[in-house]
């Protein structure tokens, strides 16, 4: 099985030198879902941003390789890189309320890139958009195409963003906490939808989340991130049966499970955190030498 997205030894630093990501490596296989788990601030969103080229200006990629569809995109010129990513990858953003342009109707927001970047004709793009809106179970797609974002609910907007992400049949989708901003009832539906769409289109999906419960439902493999470092990389079954790294074990113990909702939760103990931090310090020492 070859990886569609393969990140090798990626280090991202803040201007001034503080590392945000340390030597991160991970693989996302075509047609599979890879979970990226960590606490907030662990740097998990930054991995997606590094791949898509939307890192904040204060951050720079200092070392590493990002192989996408057999090409190390970090060696490409910025304009080539942008076009390549635009053609084969897509993002499902975190907050559906802010991720749609408030001054434009829904239709053009989905079709425009198909016309502009992929060179489709307007009719084909519109037909495709309608088809996808139906696929993400939006009632009356023709009408929705003509509405403005503020006329739709958060769940509807997230469905639209999902449809938009799949519109160009990308080979890789990065979902950045796609359910965090939604109501709990809607969360489940959206999660199911992303999972179904991924299976049907057999896309590689990098699923960024802080929620191990979510990961257990949709992912095939996962990476656990702590303070910008991958502490564990595993297949799902193995991870939930027998986590290797003490931080992973602690994280798992701190997650409620559906099988035993009454079971008590154990917070991550300071001892574990200290151990991980020591590990990271050693890593930084090695990097400096």
């Amino acid at each position, binding site marked *: 099985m070859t990886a569609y997205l393969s990140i090798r030894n990626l280090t991202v630093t803040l201007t001034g030198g503080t590392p945000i990501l340390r030597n991160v490596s991970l693989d996302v296989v075509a047609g599979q879902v890879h979970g990226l788990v960590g606490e907030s601030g662990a740097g998990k969103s930054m991995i997606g941003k590094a791949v*898509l*080229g*939307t890192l904040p*200006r204060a951050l720079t990629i200092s070392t590493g390789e990002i192989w996408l569809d057999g090409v190390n995109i970090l060696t490409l010129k910025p*304009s080539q890189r*942008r*076009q390549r*990513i*635009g*053609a084969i*990858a*897509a*993002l499902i*953003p*975190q*907050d559906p309320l*802010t*991720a*749609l*342009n*408030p*001054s*434009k109707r829904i239709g053009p927001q989905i079709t425009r*890139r198909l016309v*502009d*970047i992929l060179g489709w004709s307007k009719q084909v793009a519109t037909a495709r958009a309608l088809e996808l809106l139906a696929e993400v179970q939006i009632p009356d797609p023709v009408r929705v195409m003509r509405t*403005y974002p*503020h*006329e739709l609910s958060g769940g509807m907007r997230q469905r639209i*963003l999902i449809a938009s992400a799949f519109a160009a049949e990308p080979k890789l989708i990065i979902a950045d906490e796609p359910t965090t901003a939604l109501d709990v009832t809607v969360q489940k539906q959206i999660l199911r939808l992303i999972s179904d769409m991924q299976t049907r289109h057999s896309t590689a999906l990098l699923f960024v989340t802080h929620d191990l419960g979510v990961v257990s439902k949709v992912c095939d493999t996962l990476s656990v991130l702590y303070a910008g470092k991958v502490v564990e990389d595993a297949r799902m079954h193995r991870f939930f049966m027998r986590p290797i790294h003490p931080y992973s074990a602690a994280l798992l113990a701190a997650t409620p499970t559906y099988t035993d909702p009454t079971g008590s939760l154990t917070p991550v103990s300071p001892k574990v955190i200290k151990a991980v931090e020591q590990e990271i310090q050693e890593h930084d020492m090695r990097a400096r030498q």
Partner: protein
Amino acid sequence: MALLRTFLLRLVTTIITLFGVAVIVFVVIRVVPGNPIAMMLPPGATEDDIAQLQALYGFDKSILEQFIIWLSGVVQGDFGTSISTRQPVAGLVLNRLPATLELSIISLIFAVLMGGTMALLGTRYRDGKAEGVIDVIAGMALSIPDFLWGLILILLFGVLWPVFHISGRISPALNIDFSTQFYLFEAILRLRFDVIYDLIGHMLMPALALAIPLAAIIAQLLKQSLKETMHLDYVTLARTKGYSEGKVITREALPNAVLPTLTLVGVQFTFLIGGTVIIERLFSYEGLGNMAIDAVINRDLPLIQGIVILFALLFTLVNLTVDILYVVLNPRLRNAR
């Protein structure tokens, strides 16, 4: 619905404001110490002359009576008779209005083009040297008023490197008959490119003088608004779709960034119209403002009154237009019930 309500509401406040302006102009001219009729007459006029003239212009009645007479005239389009030319004020003023309107609109177009370009460039190359340069230029442009810009332009392009016209509205040599006073508009309709060229050539310097400060304001406001928009999620999402940075700015950020700057630009545009008074004088451009100054020098009170009220009307109309545009361009307000 929302559009209609905003429009009606604004229309009412517009009328109230205009009425206030009319009252103030009327009262200021009549209450201030000094007999306005005595001011109109040459020194050495007899008491009899003064009384006669006062009766002629209605100054012998009470202020309230005068105001009612004047207002009922205004409602019928009669703004009184100019003292210096002995012609109806309404005709004189309307004859000059097109020249001032054309100058103001050309200036606004210049300002939007220059300010917009600066804002877009500043956003494209933000946090770099280019943005710093744009900030400094805008700051300088803003701290110098249009009157001084006019003089500087006259020196630069009228004297040091005399390439542009620095006085008048049209070359007398052209000698063409216009059927309206909207020379530029008419020339465009008739496709007389030589005339368009000549008119724009005359307008270029005064319009630039008026446009530079406004361009600076647009550059500052729009750039700030654009930079705020650039952090929003839908802009980031557009980046991942393969659009270039320039396209991301013009297509995704610009439509949303324009809205908050629109109201402020509207207010600034009224200041620009006010600025035409002195700029027209400076460039001997035959518009309303130039006539206003002549009216003051000739102490032609009915004419001054008419011009001030016309300017106030222009101001309130600009504000009204901006309010309506704001609703039309904002999808949230447009569809609200």
